[in-house]
Every structure is written in structure tokens, then in C-alpha cells.
């Protein structure tokens, strides 16, 4: 087990190098002079030169890359070209907002997904199964920015059109923007979590169906074990193993998906930071935030792999 963890850590190194190379190159792959783009087209030559000097863009590329990585490892991601503020501080201030959003959404998705998946599997080919799977298919197909807008419409704003869905009036159950209070958290979490809930429900269902058909479940039933215990203690335990991987991947995916949700609900997280910075052509911020999210995702995946290995000792991941 220890050996496995060490080997997995070593395997992560080339990925980390690749990620840092990609993020570093972003600024240089943009057609045109990055300093000119950041300064703005009509900026005076002196200002462009200042930016170039400040970001060290006059040095050879490999020197720039080495500097970037050395600084990044020490927690220095450079400064915003717009506000001049420290990128690490900017990202750090928003880090937990995005992580919180992703964690709450994952919890919601796991909770709903597992229940729905188990019900669907135990009542397979019944109306409840079909209904749940249909809802899951919808959940999977819904763009979350649209879901977010619709939730805002129905539960935070309401309708003000006479004759247009008259039974819903102005509502203020939840808040359409911001992050922190319960009223602000509910809608974004539903928005971000729905897709994952659908995926987890489908995964749980098929995993449960695989397990339920196995011999040891038949043996348990033959022994006269109560059906509830067969399902929840014998079957679910093994059915959950593949689900764990999906949950881990989903959590990581939600870190990326948070960009859109944060933008819809005006939440000051890392996602909104990236999107605002893209619009402002503030490359150090874009690079720093993308780097942090990618690293977080890589380590979450590493953790999931190790957990998976731990849960399922039969599987040899060599």
C-alpha cells in the first residue's frame, strides 16, 4: 500500500510539469505581444515596456518558465496587471468559496444520487425506476447556467407578468446572488449539484444491478437474511466501490463547473475570478487561478485513486 502511494506520487510529477508548462505557455500562445494585449491596444509604448519589464517577458522562455515554477512553488504567482495585487492573495481569498461550493454540491449530489440509484435498482423496471431514470436523464442534459437562471426566476424573483403563470407571485425565499448565508447557498448548490446527482444515480443503479445478481447475494437471501439488510449491508457496500471513483471525479469536475455557477450567482469564487480576468486580459490572474484549480484536481484524483485501492483490495492497479 505504502509502495503504491509512493509510486502514484511519482507518476503525478510529469503531470504537474505538463500542467505548469501549459499554464505558463498560455500567455505566450496568445497571438500578438502579450504585454501589448494586457496594456491595451492604444497604450503608450512606455506602459507596454513597463509590463514587459515587470513580468520579465524580455528574458528567454526557459528562464521565464523556470522562474515561474520556482516562484509558484514558493507560493508566488505574480501580480495582477490590472490592480497590481498579489495573485496568490487574490486566489487565496476566493479559494474556500469555490471549494465550499463544490463540497456542498457534492454532498447534495451523493445524497440524492445514492438514494435515487438504490431505489431505481431495487425496483427495476417499475414506474418509479423509469421515472427516476428519466429525471436523471434530464438532470444530465440541463445546462447548469440555464438551471441557475430558472431557479433564480422561480425561487428568488418570481413572476411579475399578469396572466403569465398567475399562481407564482413575487418571491424572496432565496437570494439570487452572493455567498455565505443559507438563503444564498441553496440555489447555487442545487445548480451545480444536479448534473452530478444524475450521474451518481445512474452509476449507483447499474453498479447495484451488477452486484444484486451475484451469487453471494443469492446466498444471503437463501439464508433468510431480511431483504433490507441484503440490500443495504451486503449489496450496497460492494456496489459503492465504483461509485466512490465517480464521486471523486465529480467533485473535481465541479471545481471547474463552478466557474459558470459562480458567474450566474455573482459569487466571488475562483471561477468568477478567472472569467472576470479573461475579460480584463489579466493573464497572471487567469494563469494563477487555473493552475491552482488544476493542482487541486490532480491531488483530489490521487486521493480518490488511493481510497479506491484501499476500499477494494482485490483490485490490482499496477
Amino acid at each position, binding site marked *: 500500500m505504502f509502495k503504491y502511494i509512493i509510486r502514484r506520487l511519482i507518476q503525478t510529477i510529469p503531470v504537474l510539469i*505538463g500542467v505548469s508548462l501549459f499554464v505558463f505557455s498560455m500567455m505566450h500562445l496568445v497571438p500578438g505581444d502579450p504585454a501589448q494585449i494586457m496594456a491595451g491596444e492604444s497604450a503608450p509604448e512606455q506602459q507596454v515596456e513597463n509590463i514587459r519589464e515587470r513580468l520579465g517577458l524580455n528574458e528567454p522562455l526557459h528562464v521565464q518558465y523556470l522562474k515561474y515554477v520556482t516562484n509558484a512553488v514558493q507560493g508566488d504567482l505574480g501580480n495582477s496587471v490590472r490592480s497590481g495585487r498579489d495573485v496568490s492573495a487574490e486566489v487565496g481569498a476566493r479559494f474556500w468559496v469555490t471549494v465550499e461550493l463544490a463540497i456542498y454540491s457534492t454532498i447534495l449530489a451523493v445524497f440524492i444520487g445514492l438514494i435515487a440509484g438504490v431505489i431505481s435498482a431495487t425496483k427495476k423496471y417499475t414506474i418509479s425506476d423509469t421515472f427516476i431514470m428519466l429525471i436523471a436523464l434530464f438532470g444530465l442534459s*440541463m445546462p447548469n447556467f440555464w438551471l441557475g437562471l430558472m431557479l433564480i426566476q422561480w425561487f428568488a424573483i418570481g413572476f411579475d407578468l399578469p396572466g403569465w403563470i398567475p399562481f407564482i407571485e413575487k418571491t424572496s425565499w432565496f437570494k439570487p446572488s452572493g455567498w455565505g448565508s443559507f438563503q444564498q447557498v441553496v440555489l447555487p448548490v442545487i445548480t451545480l449539484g444536479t448534473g452530478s446527482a444524475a450521474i451518481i444515480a445512474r452509476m449507483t443503479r447499474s453498479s447495484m444491478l451488477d452486484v444484486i445478481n451475484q451469487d453471494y447475494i443469492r446466498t444471503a437471501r437463501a439464508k433468510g437474511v431480511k431483504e433490507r439488510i441484503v440490500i443495504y449491508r451486503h449489496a450496497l457496500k460492494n456496489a459503492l466501490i465504483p461509485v466512490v471513483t465517480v464521486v471523486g471525479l465529480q467533485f473535481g469536475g465541479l471545481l*471547474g*463547473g463552478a*466557474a459558470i455557477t459562480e458567474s450566474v450567482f455573482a459569487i466571488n469564487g475562483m471561477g468568477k475570478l478567472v472569467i472576470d480576468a*479573461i475579460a480584463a486580459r489579466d493573464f497572471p490572474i487567469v494563469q494563477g487561478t487555473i493552475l491552482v*484549480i488544476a493542482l487541486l484536481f490532480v491531488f483530489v484524483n490521487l486521493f480518490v485513486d488511493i481510497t479506491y485501492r484501499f476500499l477494494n483490495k482485490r483490485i490490482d492497479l499496477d
Partner: protein
Amino acid sequence: MKQTSQLMDGSNLSPMPPDLNPKAKYRRVLFYKFMRNKTALIGGILIILFIFITIFGSIIAPYDPYTQDIINKLQGPSSDHWFGTDNFGRDIFSRVIHGTSITLFIGFSSVILGATVGVLLGIISGYYGGRIDSIIMRLMDVLLAFPGILLALAIVTILGGSTMNVVYAVAISSIPVFARVVRGSTLSVKKLEYIDAMKALGASDIRIIFKHIFPNITSPLIVQATLYIATAILSASGLSFLGLGAQPPDPEWGAMLSDGRSYLYNAPHVALFPGLAIVVVVLAFNMLGDGLRDAFDPKTKE
């Protein structure tokens, strides 16, 4: 066993009497399974409908999607304007109709591009193994290290926002997905005896790859491609929603939704209909993909 015989079907090694031709029989079974699968059938019909709308869009749409009519702006659905009008008084129904072609174009072209590159990388990786395999797969790992829409977002940042650049961004994000699926299938096909037989007969690598491996990995590939069109449409409309994709005044659904968000208070229909259109298209591809997967799956009987 069943899986093996299914995989063998694509090869021409064992000539059969015409009435027992396993290829034709397999196709008939597939078709039968597919037709019995109602979700897949509905998905397929919806997609055909959307393609029809794309072709005849300008005939179906009652108004020009770009003509502004400021006096009648932000009006709710009526018999004149089925989906109402937007903030410039443009007919939303006509814009949704015209947007279909943009959405399908992005979905199909990004998946075709991404799948072509991904299939090549995946086959090379799986067939040759060794160092080439490790290099390609580590590269794919790097691309996969950017969760969700983040990679596409980064690429669009580099390329700049436009419909074509969204296609490239989504295509590049899809490469590792296809490479992995294809590599896995290639590995399992490569182990089969008839590949060894072909090698012993002196067939070149290229010939083996294209004539004997590729035809046998098409089923998982088709399923993956169909499902990925759904994902691609979601990502692309998400990028446009963020203002990084199709630019106004193009009637792209994500961009239309983005316009609509400013009018949630007094004109909720502006955001409603483009979103519904995305849901239906994505749903159709997901249904078709699910159905194809069931049809190709040797575990489901008949």
C-alpha cells in the same frame, strides 16, 4: 465468449454461407435491439427533426432572426411571436430556429475533430505500447488535469472568443476522452488471435490498424461520440453564455440566454426558450447514445 465472437464479426477471416453471414445477422440484431429501445428511438427522431430544422430553418422561421423591432421589445409569447421578443424586439422563435444550425455545427464538428485526433492517438498508444504509449498517455493526463469546462476556457482565452475557436477548444478537450476509450478497446482487440495471425502473414502495421483493429473498435467509439456531442453542446453554449463563444448578434442559444439574464425581472421568457432548446437537443443525443450503448452491449439479450 460472447464478447469475443462479437469482436470477431468485423473480420473477414471466416467466410460464411450468405444466409449465415454473421455481419448481416449482427447488424439485424443491433437494429432490432435499437428499434425496441424507445428512448434511443425518440432520441434519434428528435435529432433527425433538428437536422430538418437546420436545413429548412429559413423557411420555418416566421421572421428574420436579426431584424430589430424596438417598439415591440420584450413582449411575452403571443400568436404573433410564439416565444415572445427579446430586448431588441427580435422574434425569439426565429432566433431559436436559426440557432439550431450553429449548435449542431459546433456539436458535430468539435466531436469529429476531437475524435479523429483522439482515435489516432489512442490506436497508436494501444497498438505500439511501450514508450510511445506512456508519452501519449501522460500528455492526455495533462489535458485531463483541467476539470470540466476549465480546459476549454483556457484554450478560448488563448485563441479568443468566436464560434470557430469554441469548436477547437471543445475538440481539444475531447481528445483525451476518445484516446482513452480507443486505447482500451485497441488493447483488448490486439490480444485476439487473428491479429497475431495477420502479423504472421506479414501484414503491415498500418494495414492491421486500419483494416483489422479500427473496424472492431467502432461500437464503443460511436457510443462515446454520440454522448460527447451532448457534452460538447453543453460546453460550447456555456462558453457562449460567459461571452467567450459565439458573438452577438449571432442567435447562438447560450449567448441568447446570456442576454436573457438581464431581463429575469420583467421578461422571463427571454431566458426560458433558448435554454429549453439546449435541453431538448442535449437530451436527444444522450438518449441516442444510451440506446446505442445498450444495443451494442452483448450483455443485453436479443
